[in-house]
């Protein structure tokens, strides 16, 4: 409780040790994955390292080669294609919904609680329900109908909550000023609201992109033929007994990291541009 006094109480050191221990617990498994993915060709899934190599990455990129390794590159392409479509749809639908919630309208609570339910219900049951519905209607499950629909039930609630955050902090004075200067609704939206909430829009898009890429519980029953990346990895877990699985881990982490860092860079650039404009 050292808000004014400079001397740290004992509890500071106890809690700092706890946080340190937690950090080790948090990072140890992942560190093992990254290090072991560079295991030598003769090495196994545990330490010690038998030399260092990029052998397991080579096995991975040869596609159908190696024991129990499916067609990872094809699964990766499928996942990325779906993630991009889901991200764009989530962005458009969430922004529209966020704008709707700036006024009172009938059914507002119904949609809001559907979103909360969709978020908290275990994914496997939502996925099961969608597959069952398609089954009873005699429709075939397919990645671009039931697959994308199932993923949207996971990304849209978060999109909606992010819109609540950004629009909740939106200062209506800007919009009123634009109206006084004679801006119509379209101009107000594109020239005032969108530039101000742009960081939120990017956050929705990137969050949807990464969560679609990772989603498995809702997707697996609804994607039809052709595995997505997480399904392929789960298949590997039981089949592969070699460090190939760790190579997959290192690469997928690298992909997610690149996505997150790219979006952070875009956001800081936007913030910089804005502050340089307001300074003028």
């Amino acid at each position, binding site marked *: *409780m*050292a*808000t*004014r006094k400079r001397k*740290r*109480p004992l*509890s*500071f050191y106890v*809690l700092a040790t*706890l*946080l340190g221990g*937690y*950090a080790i*617990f*948090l990072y140890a*498994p992942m560190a*093992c*994955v990254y290090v072991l993915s560079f295991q030598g060709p003769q090495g196994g899934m*545990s*330490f010690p390292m038998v030399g260092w190599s990029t052998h397991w990455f080579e096995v991975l990129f040869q596609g159908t080669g190696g024991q129990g390794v499916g067609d990872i590159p094809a699964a990766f392409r499928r996942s990325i294609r779906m993630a991009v479509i889901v991200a764009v749809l989530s962005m458009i639908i969430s922004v529209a*919904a966020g704008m*709707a919630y700036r*006024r*009172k309208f*009938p*059914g*507002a609570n119904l*949609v*809001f609680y*559907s*979103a*909360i339910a*969709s978020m*908290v*219900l275990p994914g*496997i*049951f939502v996925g*099961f*329900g*969608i597959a*069952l*519905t398609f089954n*009873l209607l005699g429709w075939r499950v397919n990645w671009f109908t039931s697959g994308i629909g199932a993923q949207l*039930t996971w990304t*849209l609630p978060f999109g909606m*909550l992010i819109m*609540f*955050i950004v629009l*909740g902090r939106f200062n209506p004075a800007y919009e009123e000023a634009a109206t006084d200067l004679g801006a119509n609704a379209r101009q107000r939206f594109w020239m005032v609201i969108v530039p101000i909430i742009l960081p939120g829009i990017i956050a929705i898009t990137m969050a949807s992109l*990464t969560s679609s890429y990772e989603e*498995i519980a809702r997707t697996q029953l609804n994607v039809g033929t052709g595995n997505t990346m*997480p399904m392929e990895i*789960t298949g*590997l*877990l039981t089949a592969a007994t070699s460090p190939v*699985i*760790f190579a997959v*881990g290192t690469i*997928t982490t690298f992909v997610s990291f690149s996505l*997150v860092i790219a979006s952070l860079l875009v956001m800081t650039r936007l913030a910089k541009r804005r502050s340089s404009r307001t300074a003028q």
Partner: protein
Amino acid sequence: MKLSPKAVSLLQIAPMGIIFAAMVLVPLVIIFVVSFLDYDFAQVFPEIYLGSWKDVFTSQLTLNLYETTFKFVAIVWVVTFTLGFSIAYFLVFHVRSMQVRLMLLAAIAIPFWTSGPIRAVAWVPLLGREGLVNQALLGLGIVTEPVSWLMYSEFAILIAYIHLLTMPMVITISNSMMKVPRSIIQAAQDAGASEFQIIREIILPLARPGIAIGTIFVVTAVMGDFFIVKTMSGGQVNTATMAIVTELNAFQYPPAAAKSVLMLAIVLGLVAILLRFADIRKELTK
């Protein structure tokens, strides 16, 4: 043509409303309906059959499965809450610079950018028979042969849950703690309150919305999970959700549907209780 503001809102919400109706609400109704239908090994018949439901409520197995599930929920909640609250308290009230605080919060979130299946398999080189923990224990002479219950056991499942679910607790609780006015704590200190009294009398009650939302994350994640149970137990532990997934894989839809309805009712009931402690929309905008 000029639309009324209400009509504009309805048009704007329509895409989201239609998707939730078609992909969440209708499927839930379908699950409910199918749970009352007859079936054989290949298909579902449109005839009423109450056997699936009788099974759910009379089977000793169902009871045992829910016992395991709730045991996991209880243990994981106690550990993640204790850890999450302590870490959040440290970050908000002991770390003085905002920059360091945000850096530490980011450091806690970074491991979650690695996909779930990979995070599960990452435990093998640590907890397996030839894993680092066993190597260390053997090396230090604490045990004479490798400890086998570290991996593929209930212990392993709990470790994976705690690893996954402490982060949401830290984030939601520290979010609530950051809104506690420093002046109240200053006043309590001036009145001679100890650190423990301040935590119990001021911070704990004011952090309640964050605790409630973190609890929602933990409870729903553990109750709905089958993946961690499957990978971390090596197929030796069964929970309520695991049993449903097994039936799904065997295409036994009506019994799976009946068990799903019960599970969904329990989860939604728990969430509804927890939401009494936190207004999500207010938490987000303030």
